[in-house]
């Protein structure tokens, strides 16, 4: 049997003939990311082969690697079957992942601290009350120690906060990449993976371990006893909540996309290593693809209370949109695809060190850009992509139809337009560029969100100029700028001057649920009344989508 050596990790194993490098890596516990679910499209699993290696590329002519890369003996781990001994160099991305920008804060509003969990000392023991009803006792007076945890379970990232339930203060916070990505990158792949009991157990264990790592760090930082934690709020999308609670998510992945989990309820907190009286609270879930994270966002943005018309948009792989008109709410989700995460983009990457995050072209055609952590860019993250495309549309290098335009560009822009393997591309540096295909990916992603916004506006009979405020939520959205969003037409131009970036409202809303028990019943009621729209069933959606593709 062939022997595979992972040089950086100093691991080696023997595998069956014909196994892919990726499969071998997973067996060996070497993490290689596969945003396209290992179908050979995205190029993100490229690895370098040692000189004396023999493998066979399953489909090398369609490889997204450029000819120059292939010549340097890079191959796609997912497409390369092993037919002899190989040495593999996996690029160490841990530094990149450690530097990944995770947004833990979201805007909120002031509310009364009135948690579900309270404590009462009767002179002998401390009673723990849940919703006013005794649920347990502790020896002595422990009333001073009463804590809760909020976790935003994102598909890509996890954010946790430790909250003092007496004061409402956040006393520690931690974040990390969601380690489930190693098994399945996107939401649908996660559903697929968790559709069998073993897969579900694996992903759940993976999340619980991550939770325990983060909570331990917070307890140590704040110097508190984990047994004094009584409630944990899981805010997150519907799939992540299913997996976190050990529920089979497979119905979410099939029409009619039903969520078995309604939220607005408590779950057993076994395995979280908190007080034996502790429990998990799940905020109400809106639908299969509009989760508790959006309920949290709805709560802290007060969409059910504010007058006028508000659009709440969480831009990501799935764009979730809530449109509120004087307390009447409609919600939907739209399949934007992974372009905003920098995936399926030739030189795309996550928002980590080395990513081009903003880009502008001056009046003289001079390019200015900023790179996370400074220095030369090594790739483009989602916000950078939108900036690059937006600016190139503005100066006419990209036409309204999304095609690189021929024409009278100024000299420096003309020089930047070169070709990669016979296809036109715009070069920002010698290594970092965007291709025609990248622009098409950006068009599909922004078109999906725009069409979702338009569909909700037409559903509520609202014109774009009557919208009073536009709230862009989520970690990715936080790093966008209004100009790019309008320039590429992700948002209608009538939204100019009305856009606010509200950050991680899944986290801030989860905290509100933890700290004020009244919100729980109220949001259950609000969520029950939301008009949940399945875009695929909306008449004319296809036309709306096609019309939303141009710039």
């Amino acid at each position, binding site marked *: 049997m062939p022997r595979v050596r992972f040089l950086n990790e100093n691991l080696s194993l023997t595998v069956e003939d014909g196994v892919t490098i990726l499969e071998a890596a997973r067996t060996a516990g070497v993490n290689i990311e596969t945003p396209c679910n290992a*179908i050979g499209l995205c190029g993100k699993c490229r690895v370098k082969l040692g000189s004396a290696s023999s493998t066979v590329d399953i489909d090398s002519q369609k490889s997204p690697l450029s000819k120059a890369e292939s010549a340097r003996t890079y191959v796609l781990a997912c497409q390369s079957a092993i037919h002899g001994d190989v040495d593999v160099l996996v690029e160490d991305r841990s530094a990149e992942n450690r530097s990944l920008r995770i947004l833990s804060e979201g805007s909120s509003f002031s509310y009364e601290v009135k948690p579900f969990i309270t404590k009462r000392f009767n002179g002998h023991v401390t009673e723990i009350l849940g919703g006013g009803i005794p649920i347990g006792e502790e020896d002595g007076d422990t009333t001073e120690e009463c804590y809760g945890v909020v976790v935003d379970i994102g598909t890509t990232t996890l954010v946790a906060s430790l909250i003092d339930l007496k004061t409402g203060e956040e006393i520690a916070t931690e974040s990390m990449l969601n380690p489930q990505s190693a098994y399945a990158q996107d939401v649908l792949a996660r559903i697929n993976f968790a559709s069998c009991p073993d897969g579900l157990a694996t992903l759940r264990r993976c999340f619980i371990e991550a939770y325990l790592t983060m909570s331990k760090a917070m307890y140590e930082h704040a110097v508190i006893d984990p047994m004094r934690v009584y409630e944990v709020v899981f805010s997150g999308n519907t799939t992540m909540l299913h997996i976190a609670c050990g529920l089979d998510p497979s119905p979410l*992945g099939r*029409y009619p996309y039903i969520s078995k989990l309604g939220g607005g309820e408590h779950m057993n907190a076994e395995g979280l290593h908190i007080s034996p009286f502790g429990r998990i609270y799940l905020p109400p879930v809106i639908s299969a693809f509009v989760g508790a994270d959006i309920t949290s966002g709805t709560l802290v943005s007060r969409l059910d209370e504010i007058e006028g018309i508000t659009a709440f948009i969480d831009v990501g792989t799935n764009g979730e949109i809530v449109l509120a008109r004087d307390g009447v709410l409609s919600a939907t989700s739209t399949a934007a695809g992974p372009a905003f995460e920098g995936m399926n983009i030739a030189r795309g990457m996550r928002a980590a060190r080395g990513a081009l995050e903003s880009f502008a072209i001056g009046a003289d055609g001079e390019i200015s850009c900023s790179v996370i952590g400074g220095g030369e860019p090594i790739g483009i993250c989602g916000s950078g992509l939108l900036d690059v495309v937006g600016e190139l549309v503005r100066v006419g290098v990209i036409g309204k139809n999304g095609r690189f335009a021929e024409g009278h560009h100024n000299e420096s822009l003309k020089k930047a337009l070169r070709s990669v393997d016979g296809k036109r591309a715009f070069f920002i540096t010698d290594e970092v560029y965007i291709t025609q295909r990248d622009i*098409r990916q950006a068009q599909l992603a922004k078109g999906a969100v725009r069409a979702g916004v338009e569909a909700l506006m037409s559903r509520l009979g609202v014109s774009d100029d009557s919208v009073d405020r536009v709230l862009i939520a989520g970690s990715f959205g936080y790093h966008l700028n209004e100009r790019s969003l309008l320039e590429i037409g992700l948002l209608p131009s009538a939204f100019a001057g009305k856009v606010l970036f509200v950050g991680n409202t899944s986290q801030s809303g989860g905290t509100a649920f933890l700290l004020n028990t009244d919100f729980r019943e109220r949001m259950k009621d609000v969520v029950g009344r939301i008009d949940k729209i399945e875009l695929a069933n909306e008449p004319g959606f*296809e036309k709306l*989508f096609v019309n939303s593709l141009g710039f």
Partner: protein
Amino acid sequence: MTKEKLYKGLADAVVDMDESTVARLSEEAVCNRFDAYETIDMGLAKGMERAGQLFEDEEYFVPELLMCSEALTVGVDILKPHIRRSEREDKHKIVIGVIRGDTHDIGKNLVKLMLSSAGFEVVDLGRDVPTNTFVDRAVEESARIIMISSLMTTTMEGMKEVVSILQERGIRSRFKVVIGGGPVSQGFADKIGADAYSPNANHAVRLANELVREDAREPK
């Protein structure tokens, strides 16, 4: 105007999404008693073929392709009544649909449009189509090709089921099974024993043409 010049003009007009020129030249073909079938085949359809190639090369995008197709339809509507009956037969049938569990059909609709433009008769089963329905309808319609699309990783297993049902009923060899859609790949097609994978609408047309040609060569 010579036939060749008119055909080229029609093809150019389709590529340029120019409906009024398509209409004018189509009328002219009718006046000149050019063969209507040939005018569609050598003019309009050639234009759509070029548009499809531009799409595959990422020069054209979905909106352009749809506008080209609208221009083509303008011409077909003018020419169709003049096609002689005998030429109308002989169209290869394809059943197409989005697999059970999935309702994303924009991609499937684009493939259907390109196939129709290329002269195939397309039976559209819609979306969220049960696996048995693909087989039943393909048999009923005497189709040669079954095309299945999926945008959701979670529904791809259904494609495999269609292939299995064909095998179980002992009719696998009567149909070519082509699969496509965002999460689908050549590797997956190989794995489930589909005949082919198509990455885009233009490729699907080329593939369909190849498959019917192969089909014609195979002894019955």
